[in-house]
């Protein structure tokens, strides 16, 4: 799980049975009372849970989540939209809620890429298990995984903060100037999962094609979804063009528009053969 704190923006991304939405009230309260900041927009996204019945309230259903968010948001965030973007598989859908106060141009020059992967190649996933009794710190073991798996080659310019959990699992945050990236890995066979996320802009030097191909190489997923939030259409088109030569076929593509966030494109891929 990861947290990013910018002067006017907070991004928090957590897995497992964490109650992420319960962070909203304290964050809005502290930002206002300690710093004089007012909430101007909110975006909540997630995929389809593998174990939905294990999720505690308010994550018991998307309806519950939306009801909870709407009750927590201040009334000035009046442009609101919730959507479940489908794929060909009922087990893969993209859940999106956005709310914004007015015409603040928040995301107009940026894009966000959120990649979710399941059914990882077992040999590659095995690199995210620690050796029993290795006696190393989480940071030290994480550094070794970053190098061993090639994660350090996704963006060689990034400052990487990595951590290996015991007995398995891995998280890393990358910093390249104002741009972040993050990876989370759950390698256990039967419910293996990895995610990659980054932000960029048309003017940033991040090469989306290189990034997506490296991610596919590192995890070789059985199913991959890519959600792109941006104004233009060049990023999601580049994603499809990058992935298909890697032996992955585009299985579905859905697009929706959200107030002031631009468009969200949700694409799913799986290997031609495995």
């Amino acid at each position, binding site marked *: 799980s*990861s*947290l*990013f*704190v*910018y*002067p*006017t*923006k*907070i*991004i*928090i*991304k*957590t*897995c*497992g049975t*964490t109650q*992420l*939405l*319960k*962070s909203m*009230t*304290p*964050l809005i309260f502290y*930002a206002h009372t*300690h*710093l*004089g*900041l*007012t*909430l*101007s927009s*909110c975006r*909540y996204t*997630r995929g389809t849970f*593998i*174990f939905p019945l294990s999720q505690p309230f308010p*994550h018991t259903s998307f309806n519950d989540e939306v009801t909870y968010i709407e009750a927590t948001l201040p009334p000035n965030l009046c442009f609101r939209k919730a959507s479940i973007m489908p794929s060909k598989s009922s087990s893969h859908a993209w859940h999106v809620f956005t709310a914004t106060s007015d015409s*603040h141009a*928040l995301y107009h020059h940026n894009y966000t890429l*959120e990649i979710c992967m*399941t059914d990882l190649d077992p040999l590659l996933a095995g690199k995210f298990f620690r050796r029993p009794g290795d006696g190393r710190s989480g940071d030290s073991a*994480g550094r070794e995984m970053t190098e061993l798996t090639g994660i350090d080659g996704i963006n060689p310019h990034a400052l990487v*903060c990595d*951590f290996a959990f015991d007995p398995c*699992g891995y*998280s*890393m*945050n990358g*910093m390249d*100037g*104002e741009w972040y990236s*993050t990876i*989370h890995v*759950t390698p*256990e066979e*039967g*419910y*293996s*999962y990895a*995610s990659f996320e980054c932000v960029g802009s048309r003017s940033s030097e991040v090469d989306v094609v290189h990034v997506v191909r490296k991610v596919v190489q590192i995890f070789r997923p059985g199913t991959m979804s890519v959600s792109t939030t941006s104004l233009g259409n060049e990023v999601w088109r580049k994603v499809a063009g990058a992935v298909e030569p890697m032996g992955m076929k585009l299985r579905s593509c859905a697009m929706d528009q959200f107030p002031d966030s631009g468009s969200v494109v949700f694409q799913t891929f799986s290997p031609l053969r495995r």
Partner: protein
Amino acid sequence: AFSGFEGFEKRLELHFFCDDPALLQLGLRKLDFDCIHQTLQEVQCTVVSAVGNSYFDAYVLSE
């Protein structure tokens, strides 16, 4: 029913504004770590590693 560790994340992005540009220089980065710690307690996470640069702070969390 069998239930393993849920990998799929929930992701929340919040944007703030203020009319006073002086307050926005560091903005949310000025929040005490106690505030962050208490917020993460609500989520049921803790910080396991952290790093920052001139633009933002990044935290790796438990879970």
